[in-house]
């Protein structure tokens, strides 16, 4: 059986700037995979290649053995890839429940089941009390949660989280971590971009480190943080020897 997601020699340039160069790694079903790297390492670009927003210049992305690179986002969503956005993109003319219903309609065409699915997803993500609030009235932490709820309502196999825990208070981040664990416990594979190392490292099974568009290293969190190349990429040459 192939891995859930295969990123196979993916390269992508934007106007001569190489965002991703020859990137390869697998995501195993049921794991939480962290994607880290300094600013500009190409993390969000890679997310966009996986979720269909952009097409890689070369290489391909496969979901359960099926090639998905080149497919538009709406098809990637139907095949089981859901994502959140680094800059929150809530539907601000709608309530929280209505936002999540849009996600639920991805697989359910009738309103009654879609509403039931959305309510269930809101309960799972701890947003039930806010169901009837306008989306624009949510706190930043709640908006991140709403994006997760909306994505989960599409019944994904793989959930891509783009800096879901960044900019939250320690308490909010801790409850976000718990939510991600709960998502995995439901059998959904998680791949997450995150800057907050002390939150990310205890959470993930493996880490892919990107630097300047390339894969620097892949491994368990404890190995990765001791890797001299990673330290150099994050802190500069001076610290690598220490």
């Amino acid at each position, binding site marked *: 059986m192939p891995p859930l997601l295969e990123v196979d020699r993916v390269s992508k340039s934007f106007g001569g700037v190489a965002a991703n160069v020859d990137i390869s790694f697998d995501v195993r079903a049921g794991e939480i995979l962290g994607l880290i790297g300094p600013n500009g390492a190409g993390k969000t670009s890679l997310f966009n290649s996986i979720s269909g927003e952009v097409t890689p210049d070369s290489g391909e992305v496969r979901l359960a053995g099926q090639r998905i690179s080149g497919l538009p986002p709406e098809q990637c*969503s139907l095949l089981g890839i859901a994502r959140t956005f680094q800059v929150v993109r*809530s539907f601000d003319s709608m309530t929280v429940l209505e936002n999540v219903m849009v996600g639920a309609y991805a697989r359910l065409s009738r309103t009654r089941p879609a509403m039931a699915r959305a309510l269930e997803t809101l309960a799972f993500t701890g947003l039930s009390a806010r169901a009837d609030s*306008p989306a624009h009235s949510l706190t930043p932490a709640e908006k991140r949660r709403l994006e997760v709820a909306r*994505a989960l309502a599409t019944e994904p196999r793989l959930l891509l989280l783009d800096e879901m825990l960044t900019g939250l208070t320690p308490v909010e981040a801790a409850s976000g971590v718990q939510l991600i664990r709960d998502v995995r416990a439901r059998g959904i594979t998680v791949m997450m971009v995150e800057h907050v190392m002390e939150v990310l490292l205890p959470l993930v099974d493996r880490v892919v480190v990107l630097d300047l568009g390339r894969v620097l290293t892949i491994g368990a969190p404890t190995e990765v943080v001791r890797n001299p190349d990673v330290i150099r990429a994050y802190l500069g040459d001076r610290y690598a020897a220490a």
Partner: protein
Amino acid sequence: METSITRRRRHELIIGAALLLALALLPLPISDVYTRNLIIITVLFAGLAQAWNILGGYCGQISLSHALYFGVGAYVSTLLLTRLGIPPTIGMFAGGALGGLMALLVGWPCFRLSGHYYAIATVVVGEIGYLLALNWDWIGGATGINIPYVRSVGDSWLWLQFRINKLPYHYAALAFAAVAWLVAWLIEGSRWGFVWRAVKDDPVAARSLAVRIFPSKMAAAAISGALTGIGGAIYAQYVGYIDPDSVLYGQLSILIPLPAVLGGVGTLWGPLVGAAVLIPLSELTRSYLGGSGSGVDLMIYGGLIILVALARPQGLASLIGVRVRAPRGLDSGADDAAAA
């Protein structure tokens, strides 16, 4: 399953039914022809604005070519009557079908543009339609078409002609507005309504949730255009004469969305409230201040519109407790570019 949404929708249906009854009784104590005419035009525009609202409000595509769909409906039903002797009650559905088809033809190229570019493109398309009709002799050209009174049948619902008593036109307009409202209500509670609002709010996020942008816009355009075409056919029968300057002129493409915009775009009650305020207002300013040739009536009318837009950007309907949506909907912005 009782949720806030199902409860709200039931209330809307009850209010809608009560309003329909009230509007059905409204003209009965009024014998004055001028006032009755004003009510008919107001109700008709409530329906037309609601039809526009389906594409412009819920789906967020600011169409400025609705005069075209209105005109197509008016011309198709009229030509079927004068050339083939087909009753307008049948002809208006043909007009609606062609209005919807025309909206699809316009949408096919124009929905590849986003935001302001889409709006500008629709203005141009509307003008093309006007000029074509103006120079097309087979459909009457600039002279227009007189709609004959079929003497052999007399006043008749089937032929939608009433000379002795004009009251039935009120019920025709009211039925049209009620259908437009009901379609909007059904859409609000269906997958389409949710998907269209997602397309309006954030196309990038919508796509990530399996929403197909282009087909969504086309579906909204077809329904909106079809309803507008039916409205055009009813209007043609009511006024008894059509020409490009009465059913296809560019300003009509502003007059149709105006009640929805001022009443509240993307809301169920906005177009109704907007029409109830705007149409009588424009009539009253014209009858009291117009006619002098100085245009004072239009200045006052325009001034009042600006005042409403400044004081209530989310629409007049918000004054009477209609749920206010974030005042963000009018422009879905450059994000569309990637989606088109």
